[in-house]
């Protein structure tokens, strides 16, 4: 026997052999297929996270530059104002001073109220004190040299002492003495006595944050100011946004009159974290949806496949579908418009699948025979949505650590893709007629409403959870196997929000 003959016999025998296939092989294959799908979602999530972080970083770095530029601009403006007030000071009418490390500005509102502002350029603090007993007006200069930077945003440590303890200072103004001190350094007594409420703090741009504008426009105060003060002056802030402060310098009107009553026109306002971080938030979230379908089943669905002499026609007598839960990834921006209301928008990628089972009769006919078999076709519809959510956000509970809010808006499907993995073209037969399979609908919309609960993780980061319901407005009629249905989406989202610096 030659080698070739031997090889041929062995080859035939080996190739004819069929192994007994254990049942678990297919199960393992299906399981491994599922496991291989998971990384796709993780890659999507990670890529969104990286992109979002990049966007935050870029915006953050730009915001930092803008803040620096603004600070420089404001410093220049303050210095100019100081020079101007210094000029007035020489006349002996203004009472506005400048000391080392601090800048003093003074301004007058159109209604006549007077505010003198002292800015500590080293510590980014501004205090205001108006002392109308002295003529010309004297503005106390307060430099908060001892406060630690970490404690700036919290409050000024104030220690009140009896009047007698300040005998040596010779200061007798009001009923109390105020000392400013830090825990590390020796307290320094200020030269003047004033009340805590007479202080104005500034933001990081060294401009005053005047939350209680009403004091400046208080009728009593205004009247007294007009009567008692000869100098000009005055800066007025009409909003709580310190970046919008405009300084106006007016000429003195009359410095000869003496006032009769003490006047306190300045206010104290503690700087709080909420003021600093009340800007735009960027939100990253993962959503799990449990779709609910609403549709009218067709009388029948039919598929016709023709290959040369063989024609195969499938007609269903029972259709059952089940939509599995889906996952969405979102990035959004939320901008507050006031203390309670915010507006937001973003983008979301959402994917979910639908399992189909079509039972019916398949008729295979060729030239010689016609054969009918009971057939069950199983398949899967996959829906891919790229959606732009636009919403309003109303915070109805605002606690220090957490916030509860309502959210409502619309999800605009800018791209709806549909994939059906069953071979052949189907057509659905409704009572109204046959719907062809060529129709497409690539856009759509959902309205939604839900609760938004968030809590602080750190100064800038927040977690949030959002149970919501999305009501589908437009039908999925991309192909007939979606059966022209509406898919409503109960959703639970969890995510992280990052608060941008103002």
């Amino acid at each position: 026997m030659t080698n070739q003959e031997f090889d041929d016999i062995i080859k035939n025998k080996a190739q004819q052999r069929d192994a007994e296939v254990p049942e678990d092989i297919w199960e393992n294959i299906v399981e491994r297929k599922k496991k291989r799908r998971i990384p796709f979602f993780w890659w999507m999530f990670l890529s969104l996270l990286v992109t979002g972080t990049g966007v935050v970083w870029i915006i953050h770095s730009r915001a930092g530059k803008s803040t620096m530029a603004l600070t420089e601009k404001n410093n220049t403006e303050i210095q100019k104002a100081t020079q101007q007030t210094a000029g007035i000071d020489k006349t002996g009418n203004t009472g506005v001073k400048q000391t080392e490390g601090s800048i003093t500005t003074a301004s007058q509102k159109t209604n006549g109220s007077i505010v003198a502002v002292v800015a500590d350029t080293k510590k980014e603090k501004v205090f205001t004190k108006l002392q109308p007993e002295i003529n010309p007006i004297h503005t106390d200069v307060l430099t908060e040299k001892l406060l630690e930077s970490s404690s700036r945003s919290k409050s000024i440590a104030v220690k009140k002492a009896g009047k007698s303890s300040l005998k040596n200072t010779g200061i007798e103004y009001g009923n109390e003495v105020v000392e400013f001190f830090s825990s590390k350094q020796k307290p320094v007594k200020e030269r003047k006595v004033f009340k805590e409420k007479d202080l104005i703090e500034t933001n990081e741009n060294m401009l005053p944050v005047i939350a209680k504008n009403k004091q400046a426009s208080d009728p009593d105060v205004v009247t007294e100011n007009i009567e008692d003060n000869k100098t000009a002056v005055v800066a007025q802030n009409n909003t709580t946004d310190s970046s919008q402060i405009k300084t106006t310098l007016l000429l003195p009107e009359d410095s000869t009159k003496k006032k009769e009553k003490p006047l306190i026109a300045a206010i104290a306002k503690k700087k709080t974290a909420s003021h600093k971080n009340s800007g735009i938030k960027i939100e990253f979230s993962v959503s799990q949806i449990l779709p609910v379908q609403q549709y009218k089943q067709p009388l029948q669905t039919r598929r016709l496949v023709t290959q040369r002499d063989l024609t195969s026609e499938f007609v269903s007598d029972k259709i059952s579908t089940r939509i599995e839960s889906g996952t969405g990834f979102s990035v959004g921006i939320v901008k507050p418009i006031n203390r309670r209301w915010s507006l937001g928008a973003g983008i979301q990628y959402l994917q979910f699948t639908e399992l189909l089972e079509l039972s019916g009769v398949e008729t295979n006919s060729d030239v010689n025979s016609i054969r009918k078999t009971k057939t069950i076709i199983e398949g899967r519809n996959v829906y891919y949505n790229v959606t732009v959510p636009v919403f309003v956000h109303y915070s109805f509970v605002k606690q220090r650590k957490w916030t509860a809010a309502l959210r409502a808006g619309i999800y605009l499907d800018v791209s709806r893709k549909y994939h059906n993995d069953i071979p052949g073209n189907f057509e659905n037969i409704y009572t109204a007629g046959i719907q062809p399979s060529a129709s497409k609908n690539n856009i759509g919309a959902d309205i939604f409403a839900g609760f938004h609960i968030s809590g602080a993780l750190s100064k800038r980061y927040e977690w949030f959870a959002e149970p919501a319901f999305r009501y589908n407005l437009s039908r999925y009629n991309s192909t007939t196997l979606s059966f022209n249905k509406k898919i409503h989406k109960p959703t639970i989202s969890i995510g992280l929000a990052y608060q941008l610096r103002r």
Partner: protein
Amino acid sequence: MTEAEIIKGCVNKNQVCQRLLYERFAAKMLSLCQRYSRDQQEAKDITQEGFLRVFDCVHQFKFEGSFEGWVTRVFVSVATRHASKRKIIFSGVEESEADITMVDPAVVSKLSEEEIHKLINRMPEGYRLVFNLNVIEGYSHDEIGRLLGIQASTSRTQLTKARRALQSLILKQFNVVLI
């Protein structure tokens, strides 16, 4: 459902079509994997990986030639890659006088498919790989050299020795049977 429809369905990731394809080829491919593996578990692993590869790459099938041939090539590729991870020694084994004895064709024909399969699996791994690739799958020695990372001449030598070893095993098998 025709083979073309199944292939098209698999291209569209239709699970039903994938199942049909699996059922059509599972027995043959598991048998192939058993020839390349050391035990049943490894054969099952290679089979699973082979089908996953087929499902992933089925869109590359251009309907030129036999689909079964294409699937077989995918499985052989997976199986040889698995085998390459192991250290395979392509060296001769001590040959006895009986190994050189030529086997009667009638005797070989009497062996069942299962017996042939078992005898092939009793060969040393290096022999078995080359024998499977050349004799059963029809790969040339150059192709085998590229697949296994060996010289074509080594493949030829291994094949000669494998053939003799198998003949020897067949004779021994019959001796046992005849006794």
